[in-house]
């Protein structure tokens, strides 16, 4: 059994059971995680983090598997975190991403961890970034973070990954879809997967046009790559595009780019922790229900609760202003 102490030390020595247990602690918001992680933080930052997102059934897991295969053929080690949705009704989850990564299971240079989203709505689990940090500290060269199948507005991956790959496939909408705000905008690399299916050429054209017109003023030209991960076609081009983006980010200043993402990460963590505290132990759920029963409006209640929180926050410097 994984001993409850010295996990950080054991992880540094390459103990994979310590790695597994630390991720579990991160997932469970176990207070022991933060304590152990302090020693690991200086080791974080070496791995390149590839986020893979897109609608359900676009072929994300299959692409992740092929990317891992390719990285392994170049003697790089790969850590994978794959997120699937938690049921909002039962709290349970069926985690099936690794079925598509079957042939990576016994490769000692690959570690796959399935995660349930557990109430987060941004496409990842709250602990996904922490899991990546632990894998990074362990020493994997590349990390791949696969989101749940997303709709149009789940962006958490943007702050958790260095390069965001958005995977789409033909048959899911016309050029108007490509014009909407949302998923396309978070992409550093766009992949049209299942590109052997009818409609792929059209989608490629639409995306190329959308990217060209909308991102004209950005420093990075988002490449649109055709792939068919099931037959390994185009996977090398996807990885090439990721490498090119990496070179771009490094040239622009990696540390400041990552720090900006970390700010967002802290922002999200704090928001969730705060909400958990207020709606759990503080009993706001029951309180709000009572107030609504008395006929107060949601808008009024939200304003009251906000001013309550704010009044606790007044530090002397803020009061002086």
């Amino acid at each position: 059994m994984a001993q409850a102490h010295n996990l950080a030390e054991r992880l540094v020595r390459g103990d994979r059971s310590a790695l597994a247990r630390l991720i579990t602690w991160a997932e469970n918001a176990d207070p022991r995680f933060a304590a152990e992680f302090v020693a690991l933080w200086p080791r974080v930052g070496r791995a390149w983090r590839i986020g893979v997102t897109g609608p359900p059934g676009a072929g994300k897991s299959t692409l992740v598997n092929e990317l891992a295969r390719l990285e392994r053929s170049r003697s790089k080690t790969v850590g994978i975190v794959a997120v699937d949705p938690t049921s909002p009704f039962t709290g349970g989850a069926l985690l099936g991403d690794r079925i598509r990564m079957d042939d990576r299971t016994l490769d000692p240079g690959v570690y796959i961890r399935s995660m349930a989203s557990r109430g987060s709505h941004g496409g990842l689990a709250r602990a996904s970034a922490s899991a990546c940090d632990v894998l990074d500290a362990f020493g994997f060269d590349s990390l791949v973070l696969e989101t749940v199948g997303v709709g149009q507005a789940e962006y958490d991956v943007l702050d958790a990954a260095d390069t965001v790959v958005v995977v789409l496939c033909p048959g899911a909408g016309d050029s108007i879809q490509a014009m909407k705000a949302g998923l396309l905008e978070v992409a550093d690399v766009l992949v049209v997967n299942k590109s052997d299916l009818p409609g792929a050429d059209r989608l490629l054209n639409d995306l190329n046009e959308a990217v060209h017109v909308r991102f004209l003023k950005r420093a990075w030209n988002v490449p649109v790559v055709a792939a068919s991960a099931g037959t390994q076609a185009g996977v090398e081009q996807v990885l090439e595009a990721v490498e090119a983006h990496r070179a771009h980010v490094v040239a622009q200043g990696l540390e400041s780019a990552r720090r900006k993402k970390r700010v967002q990460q802290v922002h999200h963590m704090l928001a969730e922790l705060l909400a958990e505290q207020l709606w759990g132990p503080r009993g706001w759920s029951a309180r709000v229900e009572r107030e609504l029963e008395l006929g107060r409006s949601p808008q009024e209640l939200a304003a009251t609760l906000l001013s309550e929180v704010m009044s606790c926050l007044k530090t002397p410097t803020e009061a002086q202003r």
Partner: protein
Amino acid sequence: MTANSKIRVLVGKPGLDGHDRGAKTVASALRDHGMEVIYTGLHQTPDAIAEIAAQEDVDVVGLSILSGAHMALFPRVKAELDKRGMGHVLLTGGGIIPLEDMEALHRQGYARLFGPGTPTEDIAKWIRAEVEKRRGAEGEQS
């Protein structure tokens, strides 16, 4: 353990056995009882099942088998788990397993095996009770 911890279960299909209706039914039922279920897919080696259990840090490994090879495969899964320091997981399973084989496997570390017709509710309740018992004991130690 904290209030946030979920029960994580690996549902595995060892060996050359193409029948996974049962495994999928049980996996879905456990999901509906609030557990996080990882399904391996068909045709797994004992080695692979143990490796997945270790990477996923599961509380429970449940094997489904209808091929008749349980006396060959189940002990090997147990041995591979032990090799990876996963001797603490709750080991269970089900399928077409004669009673005397169930007893033999029980002596080798399979807490309980379920036969055809078992209500999924019973399996879920038993798993929850066993995991909570074990976590309670673990809490007392630390």
